[in-house]
């Protein structure tokens, strides 16, 4: 099974559906330990991503990922904009000129995305961020040999839930120190939806 432009586009559309549907939830999580705009940021940004990728025909996965990246960077805003933008930009480079991506290349692309976000945010795992979902997912992919959509979604869900008991040391939530404990990180939650969307697309293949 391979990941093509068709899957890439469906992935983006599916992410957008989740962001629109869970906008309130993401906002509520960000209100608890941040500035309450994460749902708005993600919903606004991915709506624009969908608008953008629906306008054009893409030949390579790299191209569609690049348009997604640039739109995320300019339309999501906040911390999530540069972070997810960097992730998609790294994937677009890993998938450059590719029409169809195998499991290994896909996994490498996601690892590049993870490393890119680590650099961008000068953060590591355990700091109650996006990375606490991305790293377990990449590790899971690296351990496997073919797509396992359900296990992928479960891994992401479990990782997202584990951020609840972490103390934030990066981003807006870090200002709350110990008080950031007891709330799921909004970025971890949106990352979960990104991987849930991925699982749903891979499931259909």
């Amino acid at each position, binding site marked *: 099974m391979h990941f093509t432009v068709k899957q890439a586009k469906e992935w983006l559309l599916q992410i957008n559906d989740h962001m629109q549907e869970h906008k309130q939830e993401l906002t509520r999580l960000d209100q608890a330990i941040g500035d309450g705009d994460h749902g708005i*940021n993600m919903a606004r940004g991915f709506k624009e991503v969908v608008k953008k990728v629906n306008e054009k025909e893409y030949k390579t996965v790299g191209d569609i990922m690049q348009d997604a990246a640039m739109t995320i960077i300019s339309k999501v805003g906040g911390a999530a904009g540069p972070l997810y933008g960097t992730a998609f930009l790294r994937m677009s480079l890993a998938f450059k000129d590719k029409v169809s991506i195998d499991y290994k290349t896909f996994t490498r692309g996601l690892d590049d995305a993870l490393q890119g976000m680590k650099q961008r945010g000068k953060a590591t795992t355990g700091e109650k961020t996006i990375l606490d979902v991305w790293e377990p997912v990449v590790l899971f992919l690296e351990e496997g040999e073919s797509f396992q959509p359900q296990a992928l979604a479960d891994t992401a869900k479990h990782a997202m839930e584990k951020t609840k008991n972490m103390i934030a040391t990066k981003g807006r939530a870090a200002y709350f120190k110990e008080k950031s404990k007891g709330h799921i990180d909004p970025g971890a939650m949106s990352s979960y939806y990104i991987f849930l969307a991925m699982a749903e697309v891979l499931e259909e293949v």
Partner: protein
Amino acid sequence: MEYVGIVLISHSPDVVKGIKEIIRQVIKDVPVEVAGGTDDGEIGTSIDKISAAIDTAYTDKGVLLFYDLGSAKMNAELAIEISEKENIFLIEAPLLEGAYVATVESSIGKSITEIQKSIIKHFPTK
């Protein structure tokens, strides 16, 4: 005479508008551009605004960027990477206080390196 340009990045359009006014009372010649709030003027940051501000503030002596909180920094760094120009640096110093010092130093003809050194001396941490 050319001066090092200054870009002010804040989550709030009012903040950078106000800082620019405080600076303009004292310094008229140095390019000072603002990037405040989201594209819709809400509280947040916009990389497009930052990129535009860099382009307008740009001179051959370079541009220094000052930001307020966390995510403004990531957007600024990304804007610098995307820009095709050289000599653009993000400064780790308080937004208002740092930009004020930098603009005065720019106005007396200092180079971008001299200003950076002076800022580090004034403000060892952000």
